């Protein structure tokens, strides 16, 4: 190979090194810039199942605390008012929209059952906190009637 040939080969080596380096950095940049994860949105939807289970648990525990005297004439509204206090605090922490005075109550056997009339709005959020939609859920609770605080009436006979 003559001198011209060597110069050409050296130039080609330099050009190839520069081109390959540029390609390498482009590839790395592209890989690192890929922040979108497969199933990111689906994961937010699937997560709702656990969220509502924990929400339902909170409603049930709140009902146990709020049940009061089941024989009182104003009992239904009192219980709903008590529930409002607990549930609005929960709504504030979780950014849910929970309707007030929302529970219809009924006794079935040994249980007191409460059913929400209007659904709670639960925001669907991705890992980075971006809201992608809203889920609607109507919580229910079922607690033992024995949780009712019925005052004892003492009848005395003379």
């Amino acid at each position, binding site marked *: 190979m003559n001198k011209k040939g060597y110069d050409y080969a050296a130039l080609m080596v330099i050009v190839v090194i520069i081109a*390959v380096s540029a*390609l*390498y950095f482009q*590839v790395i940049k*592209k*890989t690192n810039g*890929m922040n979108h*994860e*497969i*199933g*990111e949105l689906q*994961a937010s939807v*699937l*997560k709702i*199942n*656990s*969220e509502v*289970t*924990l929400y*339902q*648990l*909170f409603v049930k*525990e*709140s009902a146990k*605390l709020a049940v009061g005297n089941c024989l009182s004439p104003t009992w239904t509204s009192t219980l709903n008012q008590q529930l409002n206090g*607990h549930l609005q*605090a*929960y709504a504030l*922490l*979780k950014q849910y929209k929970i309707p007030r005075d929302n529970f219809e109550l009924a006794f079935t056997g040994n249980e007191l059952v409460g059913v929400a009339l209007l659904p709670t709005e639960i925001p669907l959020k991705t890992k980075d906190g971006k809201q992608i939609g809203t889920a609607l859920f109507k919580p229910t609770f079922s607690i033992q009637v024995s949780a009712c605080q019925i005052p004892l009436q003492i009848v005395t006979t003379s």
Partner: protein
Amino acid sequence: MGDTRAINIIFAGIIIVIVIAGFYLFLTKQTIEKQTDSIKGSAGTLQTDRLISEWASQSELLTKDPDAIAQSFNAWFTLRGFLVGNILGGNLQYAPPLCKEHEDTVTCNFALSKTKNKFPDVDYEQIILIPEKTRIRHIVFTGKVTYE
């Protein structure tokens, strides 16, 4: 002379194609690994979310002291074939979660895996809210999990 030159050009072309293909294979491998890790992480987190919510809804001990919560958690998951542990100073030890109460928050440090062969490596946090008469009790489960 002309044949040699043609062979050299073809050879150089093949090398360039191999280098570019190599880069694209590298990119594909990196992407697949990243997405696989992400899917495993999401699946592990979702699975743990489901299990913890199921345990919480069945446990009657969430209003009790931190030790009772830890024992209930340990018993429930062990019964279902999980290895429960906690991470103390970066070391995993197979024992009930470490739960401590401070004001209205109970913080439980835990680790969860299916086998001893796989170290739990996905960060996890779940907050369970329990109403009390005048406040809301926060039970924070924080630690590492693995789905494999």
